[in-house]
């Protein structure tokens, strides 16, 4: 049973016309779509694939953080748990913005209580966003750069929050719905801005119960949760296990009911064979993309002919066929997720280097370009990678096999994660490096910012002023049709110059026992972790 993800509704068409966008939720919980009647009670057991550095979602960027603590927190807005592409309210009940797109006003639901009994007010929202947007010295903020448009946040009264912007920002509402931007009680932030690295106090459907490092994280039902009759579960207990085969075995043996990230296809096949109907596999696309960053400053990669040859030498259509059964790398697309509202149409994509259907023609062209660039007898390159098998190493094995066919001999250098950062990506000490951008949503601000000159994630270290200019323009363009045009223009420039070598977009298998109801896997593994609507048909 694959969950179909509907294309984004065009949020901003509605917004531009109406100026007022009220949440469909407005105080009532999202409608439960499952046929059976929800059952109360039970503890949800899950396996989580990593351990986070800290518990503060503002300061972390790993799924391991958000999957553990999201059930304990509320956010200003949220992505609809049952329909990812829709933005609905969480602690905000309604919001409106001025015609110039520079003032957003949010009404805060009255009577929300934090787990310590205090009341959530606009001051807490402001304090939380102030910490995210301009953290005090010594405090990290992972998503600071998503809020460059914001001038200041105001809390004129306990029930109202106002965001004042320097310029209109098309991605603002989506960023405010980010699962990461939890609302913390102000009084603890005043005490210690790093308080939430080790403590969990929120207003979410579950209260923090216990955390054993390297082993378990537990939450229990919050009886005072502001949504009536939620959550259904009595609590949750998550086990941390970094070994994929162990997580798969835990699901098979019923020690855990759900794995929120991904299990490899062959493993899923085996689980299905053994457990049949007792298991549900939700296959979803993921906002994650495996490609190769090229160090544009190094010889010979500063030569467009060499870069173009490398991208022409990758047969993405065969890659999809070969890699999909191994690790889920499947979808062929440009720099924005295929299947999302931002995808580049196939006909347009096929005109770009490396996306042509006739691979022999592409290879001939690649060899010609290499010869022209001064490498008629081929080229030796070093491909750095992360030493994680799925999908990093599989992807590299395929790439190396492909490049042999155009006379490029690639030496594979898998590095541990720490070295992959510090002796590669972040220091520029690489020729070519496997690099997967992963995000919690599909907005162009997140996906195309990495190709601009100043961005810290521009690992290829190239600079194209046309890209910079287009990017700044699209970020301020509220009309989605116009914005899409600008975004595709950026894609075309990056791909035609082969500044970056895209590979494949990922799909994942979210595996859970059939008794886990009402969890709809989103096209990422960060959102929809609040679990307020999830219930267990049996223990």
């Amino acid at each position, binding site marked *: 049973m694959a969950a179909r993800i509907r294309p984004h509704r065009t949020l901003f068409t509605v917004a531009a016309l109406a100026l007022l966008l009220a949440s469909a939720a407005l105080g009532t919980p999202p409608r439960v779509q499952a046929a059976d009647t929800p059952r109360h009670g039970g503890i949800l057991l899950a396996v989580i694939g990593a351990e986070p550095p800290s518990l503060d979602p503002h300061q972390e960027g790993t799924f391991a953080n958000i999957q553990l603590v999201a059930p304990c927190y509320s956010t200003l807005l949220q992505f609809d748990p049952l329909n990812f592409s829709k933005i609905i309210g969480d602690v905000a009940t309604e919001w409106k913005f001025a015609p110039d797109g520079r003032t957003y006003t949010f009404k805060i639901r009255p009577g929300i209580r934090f787990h310590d009994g205090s009341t959530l007010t606009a001051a807490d929202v402001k304090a939380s966003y102030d910490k995210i947007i301009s953290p005090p010295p010594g405090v990290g903020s992972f998503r600071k750069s998503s809020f460059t448009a914001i001038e200041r946040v105001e809390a004129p009264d306990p029930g109202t929050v106002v965001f004042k912007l320097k310029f209109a920002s098309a991605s603002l509402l989506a960023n405010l719905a980010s699962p990461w931007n939890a609302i913390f009680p102000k009084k603890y932030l005043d005490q210690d801005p790093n308080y939430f690295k080790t403590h969990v106090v929120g207003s979410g459907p579950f209260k923090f119960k216990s955390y054993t490092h390297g082993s378990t994280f537990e939450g229990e039902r919050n009886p005072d949760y502001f949504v009536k009759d939620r959550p259904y579960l009595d609590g949750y207990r998550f086990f941390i296990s970094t070994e994929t085969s162990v997580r798969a075995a835990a699901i098979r043996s019923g020690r855990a009911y759900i794995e929120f990230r991904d299990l490899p296809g*062959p493993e899923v096949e085996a689980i299905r064979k053994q457990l049949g109907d007792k298991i549900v596999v939700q296959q979803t696309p993921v906002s994650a993309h495996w490609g190769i960053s090229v160090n544009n400053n190094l010889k010979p990669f500063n030569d467009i002919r060499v870069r173009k040859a490398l991208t022409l030498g990758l047969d993405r259509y065969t890659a999809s066929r070969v890699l999909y059964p191994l690790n889920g790398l499947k979808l062929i697309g440009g720099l924005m997720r295929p299947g999302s509202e931002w995808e580049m149409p196939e006909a347009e994509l096929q005109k770009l280097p490396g996306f042509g259907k006739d691979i022999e023609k592409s290879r001939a062209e690649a060899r010609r370009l290499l010869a022209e660039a001064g490498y008629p007898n081929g080229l030796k390159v070093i491909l750095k990678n992360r030493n994680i098998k799925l999908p990093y*190493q599989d992807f590299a094995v395929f790439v190396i096999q492909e490049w*042999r066919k155009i006379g490029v001999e690639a030496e594979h250098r898998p590095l541990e994660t720490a070295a992959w950062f510090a002796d590669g990506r972040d220091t520029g000490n690489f020729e070519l490096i496997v690099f997967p951008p992963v995000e919690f949503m599909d907005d162009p601000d997140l996906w195309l910012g990495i190709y601009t000159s100043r961005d810290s994630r521009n690992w290829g270290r190239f600079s194209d002023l046309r890209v910079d200019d287009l990017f700044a323009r699209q970020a301020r363009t509220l009309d989605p049709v116009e914005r899409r045009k600008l975004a595709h223009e950026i894609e075309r420039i990056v791909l035609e110059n082969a500044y970056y070598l895209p590979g494949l977009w990922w799909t994942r298998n979210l595996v859970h026992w059939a008794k886990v109801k009402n969890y709809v896997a989103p096209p990422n593994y960060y959102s929809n972790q609040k679990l307020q609507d999830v219930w267990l048909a049996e223990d």
Partner: protein
Amino acid sequence: MSLQYPLVHETASASLAPRRTAGDVVVNFIRTKPVGAGGGLIILAMLVVALLANALAPYDPYQGDYALQFARPSAEHWLGTDEFGRDVLTRIMYGARIALFVGFAASFGGCTLGALLGVVSAYCGGRVELLLERLIDILLAFPQLILALAVASVLGPAVQTVVVAVAIPIVPRAARVVRSAALSVKENPYVEAVHALGAARRRVVLQHIIPNVMAPYIIILTAQLGSAILAEAALSYLGLGTAEPTPSWGLMLSGSAASYAEKAPWIAVFPGIAISLGVFGFNLFGDSLRDALDPKLRRG
């Protein structure tokens, strides 16, 4: 702990035994140590496969046939194909090269360096001994994984790196064993007498100590061959060994082999058998060799 390998006090007497030809030795070994001879046979088979991999292997170990991902064992692919459609038999054959190279290079390098340190330490005594002993203690007490990691990140993931990473932990062990053997020779009244008679120090070392530490050296060398191959596999499992797509047994066993264990058991089972069989062969041989070389255990 030096006692893991018996001290050789009486090896000097070995040279008094009547000379035997190499053929006699082999025949005798097979007759008295059939288990060890079995091990020798396995090693021999591995050597042949490794040396002739180019000629014997039916396919290219690096290039997969995408139409044949996860193909079952068949007449064309005796041991099936892996997730990229690469022939498992071919990769096992080429893998024998790496296993043998790592095994021999690491244990030879590690043992030789260790033996040198041991002899120098025993022979010089005094401050040199004190210093070398501390160095050996430090290496012994240090977790191997972290050493391996250091080597891997400095030298990059290649076969040579693995050799160094595997060889380092062998050094202190070999040094310990050889040193105690050398010490017992040095303190032998006969050697002390020779020394007292004014024989040059170098001559004492060359004539008496070196021949007498040969037996423990060979014993520990063969004993380490098997564990070196295993260490390579463990490093690969932890992601610190050789890099894909190198056909290494350790790599073939690690990674997602566990994920494929049900869908395509041959991908992981055959390299597993190869590695176990290889290590088994080396250990059998080494064990019997120890029995044969150690005079204390010699019959009669």
